[in-house]
């Protein structure tokens, strides 16, 4: 446990340093915060505009879609807030500045995650919380203790699954430094996908994000259980409670990929 608390302390120290340096340029920080709020808010405006033209999308109402949007955004918001810098790893591998991280007495992943910590990213999380709150006020959910318990479990497990995608993507950048954009397909693409009802997408697509890259466990399966709607693939209902297991499995795999990546690191050629 000393290991974990040590990591948290190191993370806090590095993040705190970056926060102080960010706050030197106040106007720019205020704008960056607003941008992070807006970028997701405008995502939601698009969904609102779609529902101003149609009463339902894939058989889901606006409030139900907003619930999916809110749950996916909160999980993703937590992940980008904590790990948002790891997708810059390729840059550090390319210019060799990762070397400095390897000689410091702290876990490399913690240093990479806290590097260039962006306080502005809290804007995205806030926006997700607002939409989720609004959807819960509008929806008439038939609450049971199981559903109430599932809510925090879903949001945290979802963040962990997205976190695994981030770390696996970063590990891939040890081999392909310039391919940082490919992981956007799974991170930003993933959250965009999960903001819409699964009934909108083709069956093969849904199968892919359920069994290959298990993004469906971030919110689709548990959120549909909360809403009392069937999951399109006809899977058993209790899978709604599987996100913690899926998260643990994904994180373990991502950890292995990360170790393999660090081991293969040979610094720059020159």
């Amino acid at each position, binding site marked *: 446990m000393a290991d974990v608390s040590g990591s948290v302390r190191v993370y806090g120290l590095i993040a705190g340093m970056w926060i102080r340096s960010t706050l030197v340029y106040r106007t720019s920080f205020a704008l960056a915060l607003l941008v992070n709020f807006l970028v997701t808010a405008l995502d939601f405006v698009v969904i609102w505009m779609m529902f101003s033209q*149609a009463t339902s999308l894939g058989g889901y109402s606006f409030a139900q879609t907003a619930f999916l949007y809110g749950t996916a955004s909160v999980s993703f918001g937590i992940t980008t807030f904590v790990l948002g810098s790891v997708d810059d790893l390729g840059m550090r591998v390319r210019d060799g500045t990762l070397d400095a991280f390897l000689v410091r007495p702290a876990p490399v992943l913690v240093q990479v995650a806290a590097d260039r910590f962006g306080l502005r990213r809290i804007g995205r999380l806030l926006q997700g919380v607002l939409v989720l709150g609004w959807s819960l006020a509008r929806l008439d959910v038939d609450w049971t203790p199981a559903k109430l318990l599932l809510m925090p479990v879903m949001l945290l497990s979802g963040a962990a699954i997205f976190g695994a995608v981030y770390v696996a993507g970063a590990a891939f950048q040890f081999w392909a430094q310039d*391919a940082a954009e490919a992981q956007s397909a799974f991170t930003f693409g993933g959250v965009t996908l999960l903001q*819409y009802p699964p009934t909108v997408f083709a069956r093969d697509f849904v199968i892919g994000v359920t069994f290959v890259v298990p993004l469906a466990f971030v919110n689709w399966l548990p959120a549909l259980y909360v809403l009392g709607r069937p999951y399109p693939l006809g899977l058993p209902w209790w899978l709604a409670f599987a996100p913690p297991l899926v998260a643990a499995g994904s994180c373990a795999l991502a950890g292995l990929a990360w170790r393999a990546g660090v081991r293969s690191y040979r610094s720059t050629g020159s």
Partner: protein
Amino acid sequence: MGTSGASGTLRLYAAVVAGGFRRYATYRSATAAGVFTNTVFGFIVAYTYMALWDERPGLGGYDEAQALTYVWIGQALAQALSMFNAGFAVDMVARIRNGDIAVDLYRPVDLQLWWLASDLGRAGFQLFSRGVVPLTVGALCFPLALPGDPVVWLEFLVAVALAVVVSFAIRYVLALAAFWLIDGTGVLQFGGVVGMFFTGLLLPLNAMPGALGDLARVLPWAALLQMPADILLGARSGADGLLRAYAFQAGWAVVLLAAGRLLQSSATRKVVLQGG
């Protein structure tokens, strides 16, 4: 300046265009990664459009095939028109922050034309390297409404060229804000987000409701994706419609380039650069 001087200047900017092209052509795995991501996003957005046009056939004057074509044109042009990132403006803002821009201002070339030439080279490379594959995949997996007439494709490419200039002009104005703010990253990101929305990458401007739609259709970002897409989709048929689209694009290009000039001259006269 004599004729030899003019042709020398032309050769100079042609070399800068070629340099911009080659710079981006160097990063092959980045290009492949980007193509992959644009294609995945194309699929996601295409399915949401199918659900929407199922409910509202004919929304925004498009049938479903046209709406799907719009999605894939958007993904094909996203990089060439710098819809997700500020492109050259990031480099320029960095040079303003660390003071290197002073060196650029001493060079016997025009600052705005230099960056425009380099950005044209980049856009030329990304239009083909990042545009062809997503559009082809889209055409193979969805019923698209792509024209068979090469003249329409040519008219489309003219509109894309004008769009590239408008996109550059917008980002140049945003980048110049860094002269006053020192750290211009926030402005660029703000411009990027607002721009992505008003470009209509997520929802066609035609399909935006009410006053917001009316506003979106006259802002400069309408020149980026909506105009070229409408021309390719035949939604602006006839010489009149075509000329009006070109005039809209060229008008914004001139206004924004002139605004960039004005800002640039006031920035270089009044602002003390980093480093004294």
